[in-house]
């Protein structure tokens, strides 16, 4: 099975990926390419909705970490939601995600994003 990538950029300044299928050596370059495109838009946060992601390999992890590193460098954040247990376990083992970047549900995530947005507005004033 291949990887399905759906990008939702409707909520500026956030970029939201919905991933499905398998993120492994074969499919990771495809995601990396999309991530690079999205990075050019300098989003405030990059969200990965992994509800449909069944499998992630170390190559997939690397793609996420790379996105995270780039976002951090630009004072942005990588946020993840709806991780399936198998995927969650892989992340747990590697242990390289900040705890606050993983959300259990979309509601929690949206709350966080709302807060983030209002904070940006305040700073803008």
């Amino acid at each position, binding site marked *: 099975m291949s990887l399905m990538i759906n990008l939702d950029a409707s909520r500026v300044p956030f970029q939201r990926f919905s991933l499905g299928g398998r993120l492994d*050596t074969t499919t990771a370059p495809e995601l990396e390419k999309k991530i690079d495109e999205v990075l050019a838009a300098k989003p405030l946060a990059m969200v990965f909705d992994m509800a449909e992601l069944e499998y992630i*390999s170390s190559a997939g992890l*690397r793609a996420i970490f790379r996105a995270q590193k780039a976002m951090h460098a630009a004072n942005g954040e990588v946020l993840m939601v709806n991780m399936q247990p198998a995927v969650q376990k892989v992340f747990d083992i*590697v242990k390289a995600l900040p705890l606050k970047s993983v959300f259990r549900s979309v509601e929690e995530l949206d709350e966080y994003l709302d807060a983030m947005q209002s904070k940006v507005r305040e700073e803008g004033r």
Partner: protein
Amino acid sequence: MHLNLRGKIFAYVALPVVLILGGVEALRLQQLADEATASTIDREETSVEREARALNAKLREVARIALDTANFLELHPDIEPPRLFDLVRRNVAADRLVYGAAIAFLPSASPTGGLFSPYAFRKSVDEIAVMDIGRDGYDYTAARWQWWQRPFERGYGVWTDAYLDEGAGNVWMVTFSAPFRRDGIPIGVATVDVELPTLRALLFNAEAQRRKLFVLGADLRMVFAHDSADIGTPLQTIAERSGRSDILALGRKMLAKAALGHTVAAGWDSPDRQWIFYAPVVSAGWVLGLRVDERRVFGAVRAQAADAAVGLVVTLALIALGVIFVTRRITAPLARLTAAAQRVAQGDMSVELKSTGDDEIARLSRSFNHMAQAIVEREQALVAETAAREKIETELALAKELQRSMLPPAQAHDAAFGRYDVAAVLEPARAVGGDFFDYVVTSDGRLMFVIADVSDKGVPAALFMVRAHTLLRSLAQAPVSPSALLATMNNALCADNDRCMFVTLACGALELAGGRLELANAGHEPALRVRADGRLEWLAVDNGPALGLIENTPYPRAEFRLEAGDALVLYTDGVSEAFDPEKRAFGRDGLEIAVRAQARASALDLCAGVIAEVRRFTAGAEQSDDLTLLVLRWHGARS
């Protein structure tokens, strides 16, 4: 039927043309010949009819003399007998054709009271003699004399058949005889004789001679014919003479029809077929015929038709030759194309077809040349590509060898004291990979061991593996704890790592003298302890993050105490995430089962057993990730 292209063009183009043209021409020729035949027949019939009318007119003219005489006698019944002799003499003199003339009385009604018949005839060219036929007792009323009998029988003037007048100089003649009456009763006849040779001479000219003219009497006897010897000859005799019974039937047919006509028969006197054109001579009841050799009548028509037929055949042959020539010109390039294609198929790429003009063949030839050129280029590209790939494969094979040589032996044991066994298996998913293991006995008597997995696989992972492994080797020189080792390695690997390559790594240090085990884990799968009694225990270690991602991270250390005979199993996710064809993972459960089955085996056997179980599980599915298994067993401090 299987035709080649040439055959098809010939069959579908030339053949119909030839057939249609030939058919039309043949039909036209046939019509021409038919028309010519019809007009020839018409001409010949007209000719024969004219002849017959002329003869008929002449006979009527002559007959008129006898009829007039009969009329005169009826009007002058009391005429004196000497005047009768004058009358017959005048009758002979009246027409050159008349050989003789007579007036014959019934003996009972004659002026003499007996046989009386004044008669005049041409004794020589300019002398007409007169006599009384009945004077010598010659009985002209005998049944054999048609000229006497017929008018009485019929009651009107009539011609006799041809007869040989033996009395008057053996001459063939015919006689017209007209009755005359007294008180309504026939009492005699007035006659005129026509000598047949004279009649023939009058009628015959060169043309009649050539056309074999004949006149057939109602008694089936030749009145005369082109052969003068045939005068008076019965048709039967002629038929017998030439052995042709059909001639007689033919004669009957002509007489019976009594109208203009023609017929075709085998020649009477010629090997060629003969056409007979005939017409009735009404007054005498004869048939006048012309016998003409077919060759003579239709020769010109036939020759013309034959010429036209030859012309037609020549024309068709020329068309056929032309078509053959054209089809050959069309198909010859195709044959060259076929030959060229075969040469290309055999690998001869130097083929170049000549192509002139812009017709389909020329375009096909050019396409063919392009194709051959493209094949050449593709083959060259393929050769180059293959060479490049072989080069890469060679390099990869060398790299694999090199990578393997960095690692310690796959199996080792404590030769001096027998305190431990180590066994390992490393199988990259590709030629080279990012997994590695290592072990070393340090100067302070510890067995330091490592198992690691670089993110991703293949060449990038291998390069990062080399970096990590080299780093490890240099750091492990000094007595260092696993957690300190990991912290140092992590910081080193975080530097210059834009691609975020990372290594998960588990490191342990076992004091061989006492069994104390110190573990540190950087995002790697936990180690499995196999107790001497077979129980399994996952060694819980507080993980630090994988190496290379987060700088300045501490790596917690965990301590355990092994008992003699305990074994440790460390692995990379190539084992736990070995997938079967249905994409199910081998998992930690699978590992536990496999290990439990070999719990008391040597490190080598345990290692081999687990790998065999993984192989059985994946059942030929493609290996998805580098796979490494490290097993070590501590036998206790046997000093």
